[in-house]
C-alpha cells in the first residue's frame, strides 16, 4: 500500500483524452492500479482518479508528464491530503438456498445490498473505501465468487471546494 498514490486529475472533457492519458502510462512504463473517470460539476471538465504504483521518483515523473499533456488541466497527488475515497463493487456469488442466510448476514455487516437474486446466485453491491471492498470480496470467497466488477477508486478532498493550485 505504501507505494500506491492517488492522483486526482482534471482534464478537458474531449474525445481522446482518456487515450492520451492511458497511452502516456503505457508508453513510459508506469503501472495504473485503477482509473475512474467522469464529468465534474462543469460539463466541459472531467475528473480522473488514478491510482498509481511507484516510488517518489515515479510519481514525480507521472505528475510532470501528465501536466505536459495539453488537455490535462491540473494534477494533484491527494494521497496524503484529507480525502474521502470510495469504490463500488458488484459481486455475483454462488448462493444455494441453504447458504443464503449466512450471506445475507455478511451483507448486513458490511452495509452492502443484494441487488439481484437468481436461481442459485446473488448479486451484491457494496461501496466503501478500498479496505472495506477488499474485505467483503474476501468474505464472499468461501461461497464461490462467479464474477466481480469494480469501478476503481474515486476520491474527493474534504473541506471547502477543491482549489486549483
Amino acid at each position, binding site marked *: 500500500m505504501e507505494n500506491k498514490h492517488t492522483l486526482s486529475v482534471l482534464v478537458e472533457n474531449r474525445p481522446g483524452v482518456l487515450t492520451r492519458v492511458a497511452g502516456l502510462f503505457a508508453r513510459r512504463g508506469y503501472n495504473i492500479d485503477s482509473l475512474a473517470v467522469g464529468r465534474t460539476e462543469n460539463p466541459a471538465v472531467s475528473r480522473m482518479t488514478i491510482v498509481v504504483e511507484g516510488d517518489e*521518483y515515479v510519481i514525480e515523473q507521472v505528475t510532470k508528464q501528465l501536466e505536459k499533456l495539453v488537455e490535462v488541466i491540473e494534477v494533484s497527488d491527494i494521497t496524503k491530503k484529507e480525502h474521502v475515497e470510495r469504490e463500488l463493487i458488484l459481486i455475483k456469488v454462488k448462493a444455494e438456498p441453504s447458504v443464503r442466510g449466512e450471506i445475507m448476514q455478511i451483507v448486513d455487516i458490511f452495509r452492502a445490498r443484494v441487488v439481484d437474486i437468481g436461481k442459485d446466485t446473488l448479486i451484491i453491491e457494496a461501496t466503501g473505501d478500498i479496505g472495506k471492498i477488499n474485505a467483503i470480496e474476501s468474505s464472499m470467497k468461501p461461497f464461490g465468487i462467479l464474477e466481480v466488477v469494480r469501478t476503481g477508486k474515486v476520491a474527493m478532498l474534504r473541506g471547502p471546494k477543491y482549489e486549483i493550485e
Partner: protein
Amino acid sequence: MSVRSERMSEVMQVGSIKEKAEKSRTVFSGAELVIKTLEDLGVEVIFGFPGGAVLPLYDALYHSKKIRHILTRHEQGAAHAADGYARSSGKVGVCIATSGPGATNLVTGIANAYMDSVPMVAITGQVAVNAIGRDSFQEADITGITMPITKHNFLIKDVKEIVPTLKKAFYIASTGRPGPVLIDLPKDITVKEAEYNPWVDVEIPGYRLPVMSGNGTISSVAEAVMQSEKPVIYAGGGVLKSKAEKELLAFAEKLNIPVTTTLMGKSCFPENHPLSLGMLGMHGTVYANYAVSQCDLLIGIGVRFADRVTGDVSTFAENARIVHIDIDPAEIGKNVAVDFPVIGDAKEVLVRLLELTQEKKNTQWLKTIEEWKKQYPLTYKDNGKLKPQYVIEQISELTGGKAFVATEVGQHQMWAAQLYKTAVPRTFISSGGLGTMGFGLPAAIGVQVANPDAVVFDIAGDGSLQMNIQELATVVQYELPINIALINNRYLGMVRQWQEIFHGGRYSQTDLSCQPDFVKLAEAYGMEALRVEKKEEVRPALKKAIESKKPVLIDFWVEREENVFPMVPPGGSIKKMLRG
C-alpha cells in the same frame, strides 16, 4: 491561455483595393480559412505534397500571394524540410500531406521534430467526417498514430474550429519547450463555409507555460558557481531555442567556465573559442568527457542528460554537484539526480545568473584542461589517402564555420560534429534524438529556403543519402544552391564500425558496394556533380562548388574502413574512451 491577434490586426490594416473587395466577402470555405489564417500567422513557406483529401486546400493555396509552396518528392522530405526551416530560422515550420499514406509518410519527420523539440505544424487531409472509422479509402487514424510523437494534435470536426485550432497549434508548437503539432482536417470540413473572424480569442485551459524558478533557487546556483573551482557548462539545444547564445558566451567568459555542447547544442558556443570543449558523450572529445568527469560543478543548460551523452549514469559527473536549467520541468531529475533544479528559459536564467555572479578566473582548472587538449586532441592517421575527416576539416576551413551544415546520420555525422567548427548559432542542423538517416538532404532544403543567400552544405553518407534521394529533384526545381558533400565509404559505416568493434568484424548487411554512380545520378536530376578520390582534389572541388552558387554534389570516395574515435562503448563510463 489566451492568444490575442496583434499580428493579425496589423496584417488586416495593410490591404490593397483588391484585398478590400475580398474583405467584403465575409464567408469562406474551410480551405480558404486555413490559408487565410496561415497568412495571418505570418507563414511564408509551406512544404508539402498534394492528394485527394487536400485538393480543396491546394486549390485555396493556388490563390495565395503570400505563401510559397515547396513541392517535395516525398512527404517525409516535406516534414524534414519544415524541420530544417524551423531549426535554422527559429520560425514554425509548416508541412502538408494528404490523408492515409501521405499522413503516414510524415510520421518519421514528426517523430524527428518531436525528439529534437522543433516547432512545427503538420496539416494532414482526412476522409470526410462521416467516413471516419469505416476503413474508407486512404483513411489512417493519424491523430492516434502521432499521439506519442506530437506535443499535441487535433482532429477538426467543425469548420468554425479551423481558425481557433490553427492559432492554438502555432502557439503550442512555438512556446515553452517547442514541438510538432498535427492538425487533421477532414475533406468535407474544407469545403464547408464559415465566417472569418481573425480576432477570435482562444483558450487552452490545460496549457500553461512553466513558471521560472524563484530568486532563492537562482541565487543558490550563483553561490555554487562562485564556490566552484572546477565548473563545466554542458549546453544543449535549449540554448539555441531560447536564443541565449550571447548570454551564454558572456557568462562563460565572465566566470571562465569551459563549455561543452551536445549534438543539439552545437553552434550555441563558438568552437574556436579557448573555452570551447567541443562535444561531449559517446563521440565527444576526450577533454570534454574528462572535464565533465572531474568537474566539481556541472551546469546543464537546455539539455536532457541523454544516454548518448551520459553513458553509464552512475559514473557520470560523479564528483560534481549538478545544476539543471531547463524550460521543461519533466526533464529535471528524469535521468540524473540533480542538486540544483532550475525551471526556466535559458536566456532569462542566464541573465539572472550574470547579475548574481562576479568575475572569476579558475586558472588552475583551465590549465588542467589546456593540458588535456594538448595531450588528447581530436586526430586521425593521415596516410596521404583521402580521409573523411580531412574533407570535413576542409569544409570547416573554407567556410570559416559560417555556413549552414545539415547532416545525415552515421559516421560522417559524428565527424562533422567533431571537426566542423561552427562559428554562428543555429547553423548545425542534425537529427539528434531520433537519429534519422535521410534527414540531411530535405533539412538542407528547408535551411536554404529560409536562408536563400547562405552557403548550405549537406554532409551526407552514401547510405543515408539514398533514403531521401528523390529530393534532389526538389533541389533542382527550386534552384537551391545546396552543396552535397557525400562522404562515400560504400558502407553503412557506423553500423560496420560497431560490427568491427563489438561483433567480431562480421559485416552483416552493411556493405553498400552495390550503389548507383552518384555523379551520374545527380546529373540525371539536373545537378552538377563531380567525384573526388584524392586528397589534393578536395579543396579545389569544394571551392568550385561553393563559388558556383548552384546545386552541386561532390562524391568523395573516402577510405572505406575509417572509424570514429574517440568512442565510449554503449553503456560504458565516459571516463573510459576508445581512442583508436
